């Protein structure tokens, strides 16, 4: 049997569990935490402190633990800064201590402790000032390496995490006495209840105490209560679930640790679930957290909170050591002594700062109560060996012991009550902050969390709060009958730290001592928020749960103010650390965002297409053929084949918005800069949209299918934005117009069929009843037709490539078949599928503006589309497009560029005059798009050039310092191919 293991408790003495810590193998029991199992094996030393690398042991028995932080598991599952007090032991568990160099027993960085005088609060703000450049390169890396906690493995986390959403009438946070009484009350009333408990067992302090109920054992009541709750369909019990944040509108964040108590999660199952709980009402029954008393060398392994010692003794059947002294300012410490003695553990003394301690708490058989005494020092480098006590009469006495159980009183656990900047108020009875009146909407607080410190009070306030919460939402409930329970009044004398101590720790996790607080005060950092930033009090993984109030009390003493006048820092979620994976949920890797596939995707994949991400879409970029060794060969071939005969490209990704209504044309007149009112039915028009500030933001076409029916197309990138803006305009700007909008982007598979033979191919698939000859279906015609034996389709004669071209649309489910049919029927014309690269090359050759030109800074006039902004009507952006600065002489204009000696022009290069300086002040413009044109047989570019339209033929330098290129280019027309547009109309 392990040396510190006792009998009884809530562990399974017959279930041995093997685990390792720092390479040593130990045995624990089922129901142990890592901390309880280590204590059972006599391991008090569990970590090293943050700054001074002082040896540290476990202090608490819960999630408030500041010291016993370990690195759990190995490889991709390695998790730093895990609290040994909350880790459920499992077979094969591997943990390592952290923040030490060499070993836990010999930490080379322990040298920091010797130089502690130099390392007081704020030392690095003052010390590492010079030379300035050293901060980032030398000081910070060294400090970060020496301080700080655990390490990341830098491997991918192999586990998955879920996110989820729950709804309830009443959320009960914490399943201690108050929470269970609330759950019984609400459950019996038929309300939808969620009972969330951080621990893996329900019961709260009932699990840690021997007394509590007077007529029955707490264990029996717990068993009956739990059985009743479990049988209720309307009550969801969620153990291992920490409610970490209280957000707006009754929304709570909760982390459920589904599989942290097993070696690895089952396949496909999440390790953790991050729940968003929508609660109509919530009762916070989060209990209290005990606070330590600061005294000289109070951080040695073996110094623990008295309530935690009781929890280890009673629940986990383990004593931290065979000899434990108690140091207290209230009756609670005496309870610890009694429970230890009852289990046969030696308690050499109970040191009670109260001079009337014996009158208050009575004598304890088996130990000596030293009333009015204080611990003034401790000995024992890697674990406590003795305490030095100053007795009431001023004499000192050294008492050998291996652990100290300290109780400075209990603080209500305020986190969730203050997450919406609520300010707690001071309670003079318990000498602690309790929740104020400004709780989050729909939240009530019961039990110790509300400052009600007796068991009876907790049970009663839990039941009553549930009744109140349900009444708030119109559900009748009656308080559940509660068992008779201890109801002792609290007897406490506030006592925060032993005066005169040289180094008495307040915040164990951040190595903040009373002296540091004194220094902060001395240097003027007296506001609690300044104190926190200057000393780091209350930061890091434990957020000062055991430290904050003592820190405030010390500062209050120094300033001569009261603690409530000194105030508390702001509480922010999360209450306990949440793994990034849990926040990400399933949205990781390729599932970070959804993928959109085009209707021809399956076919394109069969062709071996290379795909490119365009927003969420995957589009075919080019279609390599055998013998082609680089992408340029494929793209050149696709361009030439299209311009020579016919090509086909999936353009489904362009946004399609169905616009209907009596005022559809009026509406589009307001949306587009150019006019649509007079567009005849059966015609398409190119249109430009402006932002409110007059800058062009999207272009596309609108096809009029009927007097009251248009189909608007947008660019792929702006499909959602344009739709959203149009909906805003419809609903908010002109609600009186009769217009209805709906997106149909993916309802139709749409293919561009381009090239001189495009009509011939289409004539083979368009049903004979439809005449698509040049006369019957001229450039910019559109119509609803049928193809391939009666399938409804839409045909638009529009061109992005500059060739005779069409776009044909069929319902998406037929898209795959239509592509295959086009390829089959087009074979005699050598029809060539082309991807986004060839599409881009052809539009640059044709001089069409696209995303690179519609870049959020360009006006219609910059793009050579100035005349499209109709002055005969109003539209969004019209007025502001007339601002003086938008139409200056010499403004940017879209031009073409061609290198003069076969060089390559790069997009992003800036244009400079041949003579003169090369700097931002003399910038002439920049290259927006560039490509190799297999038609021009040269690299070509589009650019925005100052006064561009008047500079044709001029030679400029295109300079890209990023690429180190400096190329001579000639300014030419942006239309490299078919400048007069004859091909479009053939």
């Amino acid at each position, binding site marked *: 049997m392990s040396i510190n293991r006792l009998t009884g408790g809530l562990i399974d003495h017959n279930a041995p569990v093997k685990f390792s810590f720092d390479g040593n193998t130990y045995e624990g029991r089922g129901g142990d935490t890592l901390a309880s199992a280590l204590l059972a094996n006599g391991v008090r030393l569990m970590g090293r402190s943050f700054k001074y690398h002082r040896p540290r042991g476990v202090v608490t028995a819960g999630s408030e633990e500041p010291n016993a932080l370990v690195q759990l598991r190995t490889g991709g599952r390695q998790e730093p800064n895990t609290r040994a007090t909350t880790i459920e032991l499992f077979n094969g568990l591997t943990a390592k201590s952290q923040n030490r160099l060499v070993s836990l027993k010999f930490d080379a960085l322990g040298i920091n402790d010797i130089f502690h005088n130099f390392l007081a609060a704020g030392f690095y703000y003052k010390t590492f000032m010079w030379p300035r450049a050293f901060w980032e390169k030398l000081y910070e890396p060294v400090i970060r390496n020496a301080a700080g906690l655990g390490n990341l493995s830098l491997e991918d986390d192999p586990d998955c995490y879920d996110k989820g959403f729950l709804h309830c009438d009443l959320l009960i946070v914490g399943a201690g006495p108050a929470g269970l009484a609330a759950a019984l009350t609400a459950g019996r009333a038929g309300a939808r209840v969620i009972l969330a408990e951080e621990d893996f067992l329900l019961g709260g302090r009932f699990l840690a105490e021997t007394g509590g109920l007077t007529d029955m054992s707490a264990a029996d009541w717990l068993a009956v209560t739990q059985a009743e709750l479990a049988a209720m369909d309307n009550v969801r019990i969620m153990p291992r679930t920490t409610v970490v944040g209280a957000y707006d509108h009754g929304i709570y964040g909760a982390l459920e640790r589904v599989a942290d108590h097993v070696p690895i999660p089952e396949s496909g199952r999440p390790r953790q679930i991050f729940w968003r709980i929508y609660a109509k009402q919530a009762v916070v029954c989060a209990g209290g957290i005990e606070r330590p008393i600061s005294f000289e060398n109070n951080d040695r392994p073996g110094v623990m909170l008295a309530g935690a010692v009781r929890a280890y003794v009673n629940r986990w059947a383990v004593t931290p050591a065979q000899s434990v002294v108690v140091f207290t300012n209230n009756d609670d410490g005496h309870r610890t002594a009694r429970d230890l003695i009852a289990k046969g553990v030696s308690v050499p003394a109970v040191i009670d700062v109260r001079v009337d301690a014996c009158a208050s708490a009575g004598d304890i058989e088996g130990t000596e109560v030293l009333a009015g005494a204080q611990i003034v020092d401790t000995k024992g480098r890697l674990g406590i060996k003795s305490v030095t006590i100053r007795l009431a009469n001023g004499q000192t006495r050294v008492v050998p012991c291996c652990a100290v159980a300290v109780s400075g009183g209990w603080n209500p656990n305020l986190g969730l009550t203050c997450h919406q900047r609520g300010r707690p108020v001071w309670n003079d009875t318990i000498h602690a902050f309790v929740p104020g009146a400004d709780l989050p909407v729909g939240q009530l607080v019961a039990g110790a969390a509300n400052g009600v410190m007796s068991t009876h009070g907790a049970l009663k306030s839990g039941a009553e709060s549930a009744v109140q919460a349900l009444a708030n939402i119109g559900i009748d409930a009656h308080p559940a009958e509660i068992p008779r329970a201890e109801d002792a009044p609290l007897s406490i004398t506030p006592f925060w730290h032993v005066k005169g101590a040289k180094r008495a720790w307040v915040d164990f996790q951040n190595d903040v001592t009373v002296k540091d607080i004194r220094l902060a005060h001395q240097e003027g950092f007296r506001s609690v928020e300044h104190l926190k930033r200057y000393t780091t009090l209350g930061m890091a993984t434990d957020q000062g749960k055991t430290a904050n109030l003592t820190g405030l009390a010390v500062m209050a003493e120094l300033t001569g103010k009261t603690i409530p006048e000194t105030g508390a820092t702001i509480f922010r979620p999360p209450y306990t650390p949440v793994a990034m994976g849990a926040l990400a949920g399933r949205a990781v890797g390729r599932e970070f965002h959804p993928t959109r596939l085009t209707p021809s995707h399956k076919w394109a994949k069969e062709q071996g297409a290379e795909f490119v991400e365009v927003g969420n879409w995957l589009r075919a970029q080019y279609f390599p053929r055998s013998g082609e060794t680089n992408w340029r060969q494929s793209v050149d071939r696709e361009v030439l084949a299209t311009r020579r005969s016919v090509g086909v490209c999936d353009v489904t990704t362009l946004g399609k918005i169905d616009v209907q209504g009596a005022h559809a044309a009026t509406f589009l007149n307001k949306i587009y800069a150019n006019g649509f009112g007079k567009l005849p039915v059966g015609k398409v028009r190119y249109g430009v949209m402006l932002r409110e500030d007059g800058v062009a933001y999207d272009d596309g076409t609108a096809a009029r299918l009927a007097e009251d029916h248009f189909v608007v197309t947008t660019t792929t990138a702006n499909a959602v934005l344009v739709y959203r803006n149009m909906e805003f305009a419809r609903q908010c700007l002109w609600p009186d117009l009769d217009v209805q909008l*709906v997106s149909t982007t993916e309802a139709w598979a749409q293919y561009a069929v381009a090239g001189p033979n495009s009509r011939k191919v289409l004539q083979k698939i368009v049903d004979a009843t439809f005449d698509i000859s040049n006369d019957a279906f001229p450039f910019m015609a559109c119509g609803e037709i049928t193809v391939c034996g009666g399938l409804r389709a839409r045909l638009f004669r529009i061109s992005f490539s500059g060739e005779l071209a069409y776009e044909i649309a069929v319902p998406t489910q037929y898209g795959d078949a239509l592509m295959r049919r086009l390829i089959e029927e087009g074979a005699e014309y050598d029809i060539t599928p082309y991807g986004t690269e060839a599409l881009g090359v052809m539009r640059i050759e044709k001089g069409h503006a696209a995303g690179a030109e519609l870049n959020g800074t360009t006006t219609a006039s910059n793009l050579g589309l100035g005349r499209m902004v109709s002055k005969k009507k109003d539209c969004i952006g019209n007025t502001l497009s007339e601002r003086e600065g938008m139409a200056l002489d010499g403004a940017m204009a879209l031009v073409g560029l061609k290198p003069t000696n076969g060089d390559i022009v790069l997009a992003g290069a800036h244009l400079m005059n041949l003579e003169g300086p090369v700097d931002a002040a003399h910038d002439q413009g920049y290259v927006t798009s560039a490509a190799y044109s297999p038609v021009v047989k040269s690299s070509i570019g589009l650019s925005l050039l100052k006064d561009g339209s008047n500079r044709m033929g001029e030679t400029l330098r295109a300079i890209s310092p990023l690429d180190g290129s400096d190329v001579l280019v000639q300014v030419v027309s942006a239309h490299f191919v078919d400048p007069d547009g004859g091909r479009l109309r053939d």
Partner: protein
Amino acid sequence: MTDLKPIAALGGTTPCIEVIGDLTISEISDRALASLAARAGAGPSVAAKMKALTGLDLPEPGALVASDTWSIWWMGPDQWMVDADHASHELLERTVKSAVGSEGSVTEQTDGWCRFDITGPSSEALFERLCPVDLQSMGPQGATRTMIHHLGCFLIRLRGGCAVLGPRSSAGSLHHALVTAARSIA
């Protein structure tokens, strides 16, 4: 009758059906959809005409109405989605448009959406992992808009489960999200 062969949203020639634990996730590809929006001031008249066509009253927000042939759910102010069997109503948009005439704007939506029906005892637990909709309080004739895996979807209560309609181009991602969540719980 066209000789082009349609494919289902997940790319198969037949719809995909997966059984995971007690859940069945079935791709549904045999429904026709048309959106209907009443034109300005024409709500009551459109409702009357739709009643004449389908025998159903247009549903209130959050609700769905159904007969043997039709189901209709609310999708926005004065806006509904009409659903019928694809084989018998492939031209659903025209049928509805003929019924409402110039008082309604009707748009074919059949292929704008993919649909998965999820049935089985764990379906409520499944949707807890997917979207913030409270299925328990939704009721048997519920239909609502929600986000699943970043996708705007319709969620419709079915007997013994739910139907999810999501953007067709993202059918694969939506299906992946459903299947992953199912493996998480089933």
